[in-house]
């Protein structure tokens, strides 16, 4: 049984949806506007929110922002009569936000509240192996990573994860935690998200009355992670003058709450993460050397996705399976689409791949079974990177025709001469591509 909140200003519609949702065996409450919805969330939690896009006091998207602010993440189904909302959703790429277009049907409601049951079929066995319950990939670099995780899990050493943004540092932290089979929880915190004044309280906790606003005693993350794993994300973004306090805890294995006098023993493994390179760490004075050696007893490099492109088909399959399960759909990849995904460099790594797949999933025709990839997979980040790359390769004095020819040939090389995919990647029609190739003196090697 789910706790559902329906936010819609049409009272008659709300009333009848209540009957239907209650009949389906769930609890439901209603709100007629954003203010009422926010009030509901003050003292309640909901598993699912049906949210009208246009409300009298704002857009449904404002409630999504509010939920983020208060740290609640129910599944949300935006209801709208405007197909344009689909586009907005695609931009947002929120994994837990779905969309229904008015007029609704009972099956729609049933499907989003119980996607697995509504889909009517369950897979016998998951075909994609998740190493340590989380990690996907069978490439050589990932096998090395799995070996490292196994080795370090057998010890209590602190681990520092290094890798580009989106490469999956938190997932690897979860994998190490799972492999350790400890009794305590995995507690994650982002050191870059707290001001100098607050980070002490977040890490070490505080006593009641320790400072203005400390109205109650609070456990720090070191205490919360007792017997488990503490994941310090973006550790290098922690204010440098707070680092000695962290060093003291790491060295003494004891923590004192802010404003407190009693020391408590710390018995958790600390996994820290940074997206900075070793050179960056050394040159830019973002982390004290003594802290680095305490945290990085066992440093692990997480490979970027472009170095394990052979894992892209598995990842794409896993992400699409998950979306199909959640939404009761049965989209499938075509081989040519996987090739397009493999041809992209994914500067935003697995996170970018996941978002691109989610965006494609939203844009696909729900009545069909084929996923629709956008014409271009470029993100603002890949554009910047490509520009930088191009700047290195393009020489002053080259003609536009020469550069264009190189670009077309490089793209064709990347997709093994497939002109349809190459044209898609280049953002031109296949006919234009043929015209260009003819102009360069025949289709030649790409025939």
């Amino acid at each position, binding site marked *: 049984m789910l706790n559902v909140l329906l936010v819609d200003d*049409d009272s*008659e*519609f709300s009333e*009848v949806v209540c009957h239907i949702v209650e*009949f389906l065996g769930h609890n439901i409450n209603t709100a007629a506007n954003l203010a009422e919805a926010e009030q509901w969330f003050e003292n309640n939690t909901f598993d699912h929110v049906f949210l009208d896009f246009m409300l009298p006091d704002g857009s449904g998207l404002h409630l999504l922002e509010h939920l983020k602010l208060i740290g609640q993440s129910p599944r949300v189904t935006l209801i709208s*009569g405007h197909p344009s909302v689909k586009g907005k959703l695609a931009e947002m790429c929120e994994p837990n936000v779905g969309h229904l277009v*008015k*007029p*609704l049907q*009972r099956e729609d409601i049933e499907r989003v509240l119980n996607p697995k049951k509504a889909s009517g079929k369950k897979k016998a066995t998951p075909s994609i192996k998740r190493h340590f319950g989380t990690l996907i990939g069978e490439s050589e670099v990932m096998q090395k990573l799995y070996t490292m995780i196994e080795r370090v899990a057998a010890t209590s050493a602190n681990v520092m994860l290094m890798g580009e943004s989106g490469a999956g540092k938190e997932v690897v932290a979860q994998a190490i935690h799972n492999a350790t089979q400890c009794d305590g929880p995995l507690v994650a915190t982002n050191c870059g998200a707290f001001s100098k004044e607050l980070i002490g309280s977040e890490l070490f906790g505080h006593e009641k009355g320790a400072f203005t606003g400390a109205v109650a005693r609070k456990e720090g993350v070191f205490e919360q992670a007792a017997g488990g794993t503490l994941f310090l994300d973006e550790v290098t973004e922690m204010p440098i003058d707070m680092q000695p306090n962290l060093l003291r805890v790491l060295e003494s294995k004891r923590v004192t709450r802010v404003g407190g006098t009693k020391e408590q023993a710390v018995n958790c493994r600390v996994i820290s993460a940074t997206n900075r390179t070793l050179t960056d760490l050394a040159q830019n004075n973002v982390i004290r050397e003594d802290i680095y050696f305490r945290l990085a007893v066992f440093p692990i490099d997480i490979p970027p996705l472009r170095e394990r492109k052979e894992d892209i088909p598995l990842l794409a399959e896993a992400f699409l399976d998950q979306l199909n399960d959640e939404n009761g759909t049965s989209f499938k990849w075509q081989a040519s689409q996987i090739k397009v995904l493999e041809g992209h460099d994914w500067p935003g790594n697995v996170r970018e791949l996941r978002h691109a797949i989610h965006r494609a999933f939203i844009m696909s025709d729900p009545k069909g079974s084929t996923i629709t990839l956008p014409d271009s997979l470029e993100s603002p980040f890949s554009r910047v990177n490509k520009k930088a790359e191009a700047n290195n390769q393009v020489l002053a004095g080259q003609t536009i025709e020469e550069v264009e020819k190189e670009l077309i040939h490089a793209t064709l090389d990347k997709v093994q001469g497939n002109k349809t995919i190459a044209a898609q990647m280049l953002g031109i029609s296949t006919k234009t591509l043929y015209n260009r190739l003819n102009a360069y003196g025949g289709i030649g090697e790409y025939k």
Partner: protein
Amino acid sequence: MNNNESLRQLVHDARAPLNRISMNAELVKLVLENDMPKDKALAALDKIIINCQQCSEQLQKISDTHSGE
């Protein structure tokens, strides 16, 4: 409000009764499929009839507003 916006608003207003019709029809189906008290179904059918009228009025409004363009 320009013509496009006013048309969009009118279409939005016409969709609201359609949405109620659809949900009330689903409720009638539920009642019939599950042998529930028929007064619920009758009330829902009344609402469907009222909303059909409303929808028709909205469509007329669209036609009146945009027939001169």
